[in-house]
């Protein structure tokens, strides 16, 4: 990332991240994540709230020149207690949505990929972190709507517990 540094009388352009070298962190001898992050994993929900984190992800990815993987965890079955009247979206619908979001980031010269997984979010998210060798996960706070609130409030903390890399919640 280039920024202009002003000094009296002259203007110097320098790379603001040039002094940052990659470091690995983790328990014991096993490094599990790095800073700056090479690969950012972003779960995108089907609702509009999920989409709102994209500008933040774009800023983060551009700053560190990281790869981004957008993914959606679709419900494995057609009926949910939380949303009984809403059928689970088809894989094609999820794919179309992810592709349109992916294009938004690609326009900004960000290396983006996407994935669709069927399963329970808290169970599959860490498998995906391992499979993609991700260093950072960016999650959004779920929208809070009367009835749904109870279910979703209980969902975030177990997901945070399962993820083995740093997680940003916005």
């Amino acid at each position: 990332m280039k920024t202009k540094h002003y000094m009296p009388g002259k203007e110097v352009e320098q790379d603001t991240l040039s002094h940052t070298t990659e470091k690995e962190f983790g328990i014991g001898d096993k490094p599990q994540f790095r800073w700056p992050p090479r690969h950012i994993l972003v779960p995108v929900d089907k609702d509009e709230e999920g989409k709102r984190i994209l500008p933040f992800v774009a800023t983060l990815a551009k700053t560190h020149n990281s790869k981004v993987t957008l993914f959606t965890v679709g419900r494995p079955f057609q009926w949910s207690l939380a949303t009984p009247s809403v059928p689970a979206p088809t894989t094609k619908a999820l794919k179309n949505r992810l592709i349109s979001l992916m294009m938004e980031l690609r326009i900004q010269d960000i290396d983006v990929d996407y994935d669709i997984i069927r399963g329970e979010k808290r169970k599959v998210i860490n498998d995906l972190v391992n499979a993609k060798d991700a260093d950072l996960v960016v999650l959004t706070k779920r929208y809070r709507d009367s009835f749904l609130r109870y279910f979703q409030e209980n969902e975030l903390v177990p997901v945070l517990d399962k993820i083995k890399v740093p997680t940003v919640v916005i």
Partner: protein
Amino acid sequence: MENEEQIKRKKMTFTEEESRESSFYTTQEMFTTKGKTRLRWPPRNILVPLDGEEEGKRILPYVTEMAKSYKSKVILVTIAMPFQWSLATPSIPPPTTAALENHLIPLIMEMRIEGVDVVFGILRDEREKAIKDLVDSTKADLVVIANRYRNPWVRYLKGKKLSPLIDSLRIPIVFI
């Protein structure tokens, strides 16, 4: 006596400095159904609440790298319980303020050697309430919370209070 040209140059430098600041730091506001999330990135101030336990301090090398990347100021605060008995760790008495300070200072010195601007403090208060108040008073743009190194029982008890905290904070939170 400064002549007009010098005064003009000083004013100009100040304006340019402000302009540099605004070009490096951008503030975005994200709207959620419950209100606004303030998002200033890269973060100027990073709040790191610790609880005096060993596990929590493991996140500091990561915070150091993060702060170096973003040239952020780190606000390191140890929040210890105000009373003598804790359900999470019934057999361990809470450490004294002096002990907490002694443990924190070498870590702060390490961060300062790395070139990170660190301020620190020790608070005796209820953790979640203290974090909320500190975010407002320090104008923090990011909170970094140690989460993954704890044992499951402590994590379960702390997790109970985590959800309301996540809900109430209007800035990004990093869980490590």
